């Protein structure tokens, strides 16, 4: 807080430090209580197994597949989320009509539609991409909607008085004004895209890290399971980090970005 230097280093120090501390506690607890490795293997064992895993090119193929599913699904969700969010934000009657349908689509258990997914998209990546996109879509869309509705009426007036076209209004006002909301939605969205892709991989197919989870689980390979979980977590963190860093480039003017020094209050 006090020094900007420390403040800038914190994300790179704080979290890893905390993780190390947590792992130590975990290791000690597991050993002290003699917890079965089947249920919660100690980090040392997981690390060892992880070491083996990362040397296997096969795992990188799986990771690559999962990563692609997440990214494609996420991008799809962003595009759709922005489009639908902006549309519903602008057209009140459409919002009232379409919103329940969207909620419906969200709460409906995906497992019921797996056969449809399989028929339409096959066992391959597409069905996972769809599930990832579906999960990520909702928070993005809702945040964009909130963002569109939170556009300063004064700013709207300026654009109206300047006789701005629909597209000009979008690029100069709506888009930028909604950006902080969109980015917050994207932060949630990327996380749910990860969850979605993994869930998709549980439900079918034989590729990806989610499949590896099922597989290690079935093989009673708890350290392997946790190794895959660590990989998934790292993948998730990296993708989340990418979105997080986007903020600094896209909304340097927003309170949430420029006021990193911390306020007095």
């Amino acid at each position: 807080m006090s020094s900007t230097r420390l403040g800038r280093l914190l994300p790179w120090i704080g979290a890893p430090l905390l993780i190390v501390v947590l792992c130590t506690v975990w290791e000690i607890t597991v050993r002290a209580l003699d917890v079965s490795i089947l249920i919660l293997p100690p980090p040392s064992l997981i690390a060892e197994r992880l070491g083996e895993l990362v040397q296997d090119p096969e795992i990188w193929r799986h990771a690559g597949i999962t990563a692609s599913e997440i990214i494609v699904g996420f991008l799809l969700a962003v595009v759709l989320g922005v489009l639908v969010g902006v549309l519903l934000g602008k057209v009140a009657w459409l919002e009232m009509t379409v919103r329940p349908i969207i909620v419906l689509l969200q709460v409906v258990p995906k497992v019921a539609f797996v056969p449809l997914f399989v028929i339409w998209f096959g066992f391959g990546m597409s069905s996972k991409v769809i599930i990832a996109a579906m999960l990520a879509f909702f928070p993005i869309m809702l945040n964009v909607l909130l963002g569109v509705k939170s556009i300063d009426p004064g700013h709207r007036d300026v654009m109206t008085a300047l006789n701005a076209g629909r597209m000009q209004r979008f690029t100069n006002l709506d888009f930028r004004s909604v950006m902080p909301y969109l980015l917050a939605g994207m932060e949630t969205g990327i996380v749910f895209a990860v969850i979605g892709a993994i869930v998709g991989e549980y439900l079918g197919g034989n590729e990806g890290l989610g499949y590896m989870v099922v597989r290690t689980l079935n093989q009673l390979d708890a350290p392997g399971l946790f190794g895959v979980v660590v990989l998934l977590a790292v993948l998730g963190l990296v993708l989340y980090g990418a979105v997080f860093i986007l903020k600094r480039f896209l909304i340097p003017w927003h309170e949430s970005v420029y006021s990193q020094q911390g306020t007095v209050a």
Partner: protein
Amino acid sequence: GTGSQAGGAGGAGGEGGSLGEVTYISFLPFETLSFAAEMLAMSAGHDAAHGIELGVEVARGTSPSLQAMIAGAGLVARCNTVDLAAARGQGQDVVNIGTIARGPAQRINFSRDRPITSAQDMVGMTIGIPSEGGSTENNLRLTLENAGVDSEQVNLQVVTDNPASWEMIQRGQIDGYISSPDQSFLLLDMQDSADAIVLGDLSPVISDRQYFVTTQQHLEEKPDQLRAFLASLQDAVTFMVDDADRTKTLEALRQENSFASLDNDSVARSALDVQVQNFVNDEEPDPLVTDEEIWLASIEELVETGRIEPVDAPESWMSNDLLGT
């Protein structure tokens, strides 16, 4: 018709030539020795020998696998009697085209502290099952009832098919759980105090069998592929049965596969033994061939115990026609 008219089947080769790809839909992740025959057919090249290229798609559970097969995402699936009957009950024209398992293979794992040696032992116990409403639950209940135990007196609880289920036994949260032979042997290999019993040893259940299934439509459109599939499976089964000490089988399987139960010699041999026992049955015909009497008896058992509605002509639900002899 011939294979050449099969839509979507890779190269159109005609007789003896390439019949293209045949997709088999498994109801579990493929990496288990319960699928040893299918796996061997692929890794030992039995499929190619019959002009097909066998591919696997993995669904999670019997129902999704049947749905996928019916929808045309694959040609063949595998399921238990009760699943097939349920599908027929829903108006689906699924057909048994070969019996791949002739008895219960699933085992109940338990701790030696609280052994399970008979169905009566399980009264008042909590038993973990991988999922409810499916064939596992059905077979367990049938087993209990055939042994004269009211299945309502056994508490069934869904647990993840997961190593930690053993931990739950030790903590007393459950008293036993059902798993595949692979997992059971793996567990026994890892945990000294673990033991297991095969469902069939508690009481006989006729209908606890598994078949390769397809639809009437597939039968009409792609009989050659199906024939080739079954032929390659027959080859694989024969190979395994003939390989008394399983060494060659293991060697062949390990060429293309690697997973915990296969990599562990003793576990793999035990699991393969169970499979082989299930392929052949002294009183029954050649592997894969369905004995019509037993088939009818199986259906009868399900009807009698109220698990399915009475049915007409269950013999039309099966066919041995595609099997070479």
